[in-house]
Structures are given as structure tokens and as C-alpha cells.
């Protein structure tokens, strides 16, 4: 047997096309986890930059602010992609998936060639982001290798799968969109009308093949850009074009980063580590470099950040698919999860953590994006609401205790006050809506 034939035998098989609903649900579930992890990567990079660093000239400071703006913009659109994938999951009869493993993950974890890791802004982060967002202008039915080269190929396979299962002549066409009428999120969740694009976010309800393909194409246009093949597809006519794709933005950031003087690059970066953890995790890449916090303030704040982040994900999970949530409940979940939990708790925790030491004598702490356990779907509203009150009360107590600790950022008091207020709001809501 020749070396070539041995290699051929040992090589993993190519990724198979999607042929069944379960294939589709599994692929969508992995896409959700990928989007979720990539969102965390961009947020992490944004938190690592210091726009007001004293060593920056006005022009350099604006360049750094531009990096943060771009990273947060892309992160919001990764959240949107997670939302769109959730709509797709619900539409084909599955629950949403807001769970994911902890980071870092090794290459090929999701059959994507690349690793997933929390990296500070800089060359390594930009290289990883550029490869993940890289366009693929192959026709939708081109054969895949054993691994996806970039996220674009993940969606190519999904798109082809929807076409296979949902085209009018397919035997599954009539039953594919079992969950078309179930609860999904669209632009109204952010207070916008369907035509308004607020915060760079466009959410499309999925009810049939055309809307499913439009959702996938929107993800691809925003991510990799409007490639000729994508623009030639019929449903793209209904998708708002995005001329500032993630790929284009990452390349712009790369050029601007390379143009900064070395001293400005050094000044702009906070000393955050790669892959911070508040405690060791068994589900991460054992070969990757991690930074375990030992400073007790950092551990305490990272833990509170994780709790707030999990709470946000639980609230998001309750907003999708069939459940016993009333319309008032859904409005309450939406009124808590995005604003203010995301913007008034999770983000400030990220911004405060970088002001604390990690404890290793070298690094600052940073948001860990850890998940302590699976993000489950709670189906009973009474039980969920009781747990919501308990979780908020624990958060409020934790922030109050930390705010009273010496040498923590002054902003902790503001966050503690807001979490306490939210806790009472939730308590009052639950009492008034048994």
C-alpha cells in the first residue's frame, strides 16, 4: 500500500450533506455555539483595549476607539446571528441552543479548521478573526472536505440542507417548518420596526424556505461580505446589503493596527491574558495557554459576571419556541435581557474586571465568558420566575458585598445599585403575575 493510499484511508471522511431534520438540527446547534463563541472573542478583544490610555495621541486614540466600535459592532451582529440561528432552530421544531463549551477550544472542535480562544486585541486575534470570517465564493452544492475552512462553509452546508429539505419538490417540504408559528424574535425585540436597523441588528422571523434562506444569507453577507455567488442567489433580493462585512472590518482593523506606531499599540493594550478563568475547567483545550485568577476580587467579580451572563442566556432561552410564558412575561424577559442586563451588568463587569489584577503578577483580570453548567430551557413559568427572583437576589447580594470591599472600581457601587433595583422590579413583577 502506498503512502498516498494509506493517507487516504486515514483521512477523515468529507463532511456529509444535510439529508434529514436531525442533521439540520445538529448543524444548527453547532452553528449557534460557534456564533456564541465568536461573539465572546470579539467582546473580549474590545475589553482588552484602552481608548483613554495616556500614551495615545488624539488620532491614535480615535483609531483605538474605532477598533472597539468595530469589535462591539461585530459582536452585536454575532449575537444577531445567534438569534437568527435560534429562529431557524425553532422554525424546524427544535429548542434554541444558548449553551456552549468553555473557551479555549482546539482546532476542529466543530469541524472548523480553526481554534476558538479569548485573545486580547492584536495580531493573533486579528489573524484568527480574519480566517474565521474569510469568504467562500463556491456554489452552494460544492463538495466539502473533512473540515470547514471558515464559518462561511458552515452556512453553505446549512443553506444547501434547507434547500434539500424545504424545496417544493422535496418530500419533507410540507413538514419542515413545524415551528413556523412558535415564538421567535425579530427587530421589534429592540424597539425597532421591521424596516429599522437599530444597533446594527436585523432579526428575521423564519416561517418558510424563503425566510430561512434569507436569514442564512444575511448571516453570510454580514460575515464574509457580499460575494458574487451570494448576490446571485434569488432570495438575496430581500436581504439588506451590508457593505461593511465582518471580514472587511477585520481587514480594516488589521491595516489600521499595522499603521499604528509600536508605542501606541503597546499603550492601547491592557495587560489582559489569553483565556482567563476563575477556576479550572475540564472542557477546554488542555494544550492552550490559560490564566487562572488568584486575586480574590477578580475571582468574585468574574463569578458574578458569569452568573449575570447565565441569567441573560436563560432569559433569552425562555423567549424562543413553545412555552407557557404569557405575552406579559415575554415583554418582561425582553425588558431585562438586552437592556439592562447586557448593557448595565455584563458589560460593566467586563470593563471593571480589566481594572483588577489577575493575581499572577503579570496580567489584569478580564471577563471569562465561563458557563458553569448547561443553559437549559425552563418550561414552567412559575418555577422559572421563582428562580429568577432567587438568582437576581443572589446577584444583588454579591454586588453589594463586592462594592463594600476595599480597592474595587468605584463603578461597582453603581452596578450594585442597579442590580438591587432590578431585583425589586422582578420581585414585584412575579408577585403581581402569579
Amino acid at each position: 500500500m502506498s503512502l498516498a493510499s494509506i493517507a487516504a484511508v486515514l483521512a477523515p471522511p468529507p463532511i456529509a450533506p444535510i439529508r434529514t431534520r436531525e442533521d439540520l438540527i445538529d448543524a444548527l446547534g453547532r452553528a449557534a455555539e460557534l456564533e456564541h463563541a465568536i461573539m465572546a472573542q470579539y467582546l473580549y478583544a474590545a475589553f482588552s483595549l484602552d481608548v483613554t490610555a495616556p500614551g495615545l495621541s488624539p488620532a491614535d486614540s480615535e483609531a483605538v476607539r474605532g477598533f472597539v466600535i468595530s469589535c462591539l459592532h461585530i459582536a452585536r451582529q454575532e449575537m444577531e446571528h445567534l438569534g437568527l440561528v435560534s429562529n431557524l432552530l425553532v422554525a424546524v421544531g427544535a429548542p434554541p441552543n444558548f449553551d456552549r463549551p468553555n473557551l479555549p477550544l482546539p482546532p476542529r472542535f466543530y469541524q472548523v479548521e480553526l481554534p476558538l480562544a479569548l485573545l486580547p486585541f492584536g495580531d493573533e486575534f486579528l489573524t484568527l478573526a480574519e480566517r474565521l470570517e474569510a469568504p467562500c465564493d463556491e456554489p452552494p452544492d460544492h463538495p466539502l472536505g473533512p473540515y470547514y475552512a471558515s464559518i462561511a462553509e458552515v452556512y453553505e452546508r446549512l443553506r444547501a440542507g434547507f434547500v434539500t429539505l424545504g424545496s417544493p419538490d422535496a418530500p419533507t417540504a410540507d413538514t419542515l417548518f413545524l415551528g413556523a408559528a412558535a415564538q421567535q424574535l425579530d427587530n421589534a425585540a429592540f424597539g425597532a420596526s421591521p424596516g429599522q436597523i437599530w444597533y446594527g441588528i436585523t432579526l428575521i422571523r423564519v416561517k418558510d424556505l424563503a425566510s430561512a434562506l434569507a436569514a442564512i444569507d444575511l448571516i453570510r453577507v454580514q460575515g464574509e461580505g457580499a460575494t458574487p455567488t451570494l448576490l446571485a442567489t434569488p432570495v438575496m433580493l430581500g436581504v439588506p446589503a451590508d457593505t461593511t462585512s465582518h471580514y472587511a472590518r477585520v481587514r480594516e482593523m488589521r491595516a489600521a493596527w499595522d499603521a499604528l506606531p509600536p508605542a501606541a499599540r503597546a499603550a492601547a493594550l491592557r495587560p489582559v491574558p489569553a483565556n482567563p478563568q476563575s477556576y479550572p475547567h475540564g472542557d477546554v483545550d488542555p494544550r492552550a495557554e490559560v490564566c487562572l485568577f488568584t486575586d480574590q476580587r477578580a475571582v468574585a467579580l468574574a463569578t458574578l459576571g458569569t452568573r449575570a451572563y447565565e441569567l441573560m442566556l436563560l432569559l433569552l432561552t425562555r423567549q424562543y419556541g413553545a412555552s407557557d410564558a404569557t405575552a406579559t412575561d415575554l415583554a418582561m424577559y425582553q425588558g431585562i435581557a438586552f437592556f439592562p442586563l447586557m448593557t448595565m451588568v455584563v458589560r460593566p463587569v467586563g470593563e471593571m474586571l480589566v481594572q483588577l489584577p489577575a493575581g499572577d503578577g503579570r496580567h489584569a483580570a478580564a471577563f471569562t465568558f465561563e458557563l458553569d453548567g448547561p443553559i437549559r430551557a425552563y418550561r414552567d413559568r412559575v418555577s422559572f420566575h421563582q428562580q429568577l427572583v432567587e438568582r437576581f437576589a443572589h446577584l444583588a447580594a454579591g454586588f453589594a458585598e463586592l462594592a463594600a470591599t476595599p480597592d474595587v472600581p468605584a463603578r461597582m457601587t453603581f452596578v450594585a445599585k442597579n442590580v438591587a433595583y432590578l431585583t425589586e422590579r422582578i420581585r414585584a413583577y412575579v408577585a403581581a403575575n402569579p
Partner: protein
Amino acid sequence: MSITVYHFAGWLQVRLATNPDPPDEPRGISGYTFALPGEPDLDRVLRTHDPVAPRSHGPAIGLAVRAVSVDGVDVPGHPLIGAAVVLHDRPMFESVNEVVMAQGFEALEPFDLGLIQGEFRFRRRDYLDPSQPDLTVYTAPPALLAARRTASFALGTQLMQEATGESDPVAFRAARLAQLQADLPLTKDPVLRAGLTRRISELEITDPNDHRTVSMTFIESRTYQLNGPIDLMDPAGWLAALDQFATFAVGISMGSWDADALSAYAVGTISFPTH
């Protein structure tokens, strides 16, 4: 009893971070408003006069009485026409990213209104509860806060038309963009150049459905009842017949939000019951 109504109008400055930035974001990152290089941090204070770091080509800040009527009849030449309308004590929009109230409907708090014309001074505050003057948006009972401070919200171009003569937000922003682009090659100071560049990059976002553009048509209206102690210095007796035991109604509508200049246009009325 008669009602004297003072009609006021003018531009305000509000240097605030916009959603999804948290309200205490000092420089502006993920929203569409920013503290530019060389400018102090954003502070959310609504200023009716004496703007901080006013921007080129922005409107002149100043809220003033434009007309006076008594029981619906105009009083041309009234001595308080032209009086400065002042909001004291650093009022701020207090949604706190929906912690306390919904965006667009949130409290403007505190509301402590003054009139100044020469030696004349009037000042009176609307307390959420006069018996508990220290109440804040955090400590007031939510039902009281909602009842006394919820704004009404509408979309429309009438305030923008009145303030700028333009009713198309896209055209307004395009005109400002052209002004700044013309200024850029003439601007050598690196701090000013960096600021101009940021403003230009924001104005280059021309999508009519984007927050930056749509927000020019936001109109938020609020009503108040001035119920605190009256602080009056009235040497000429212009308010001699004022019923000092009554509460005074104030209505104020704000719109034409110019995110580039961090300014909004306001119109409103102050109603004084007189004997």
C-alpha cells in the same frame, strides 16, 4: 383668576452616551454619540445655556421666552419676553438603560425651572413628592415615578422643521457632513482633526432607518407641576399678581435631536395662575 402663559423655545445641549452604551460611559463607544478628543467626558447633563465644548456648525444653545399670553390673548412687549429659561441642578434623562424607566419615556430629573431677565429671578422645582424632597428615580415608588414622570413619545418632523427649516433628517445630516468635509483640509490641529474625522465618519452613515437619522424625528413630551418653594426676585413687580399657593404647570417637548452636535430643540409653556 387668570392664567399667564410663557411660551419658550430654543436649543439645549445634552452630552450623553447613547444606547447600547451604558449611561455612565464617559467617551461613547457602542452608541452614536461621542466625546471627541480634547472634549471633557460625557456627563448627561441637560444644559439650557452655557454649553460645554460646543461643536462647529452646531446650533446656538439657549432656551428663552418667546411670547406671553394672558387667558389666551397675546401680550406683545411683555417684559419677560426674551427671559432665559433655565433648568437648574443638572437635570438628566434617567432611564439608566431601562433599569428605572423605558427609553424614550424616561424621567428628566430633577426638574427645577428658572426664569432670568436682568435683575428678575424666578425659580421653582417639581418634587416627585413635596413631603419627601430627597426622592430620586431610584427611591421613589415606581407607581409614583410612572405617574409623575412618564414622557409621551412620538415621531414627527414638526419640531425639526421649526428648529432648522428642514424636515428631512437625511438632508440635514448631509448638509452638516458637507460642512465638516469642507473644514477638514483647513484643519491642521491634530486634536481638532481627530474630532472632525470622527464626526464625519458618523455622518457618513446615511441609512434613513438608522438610529442616528430616525432619532431626529423623535419627539418626547413631558409635563410638570412646579410644587416646591418659590424663589422670586421681582424688583419691577412683573409677577406681582402671582398666586404663590398654586402649583404651576409646565409642558415641554424636545425633538430635532442633532446627534452630531449633541443638541436638541425644545418648545414649551409655563403657566402662572394670577389673581
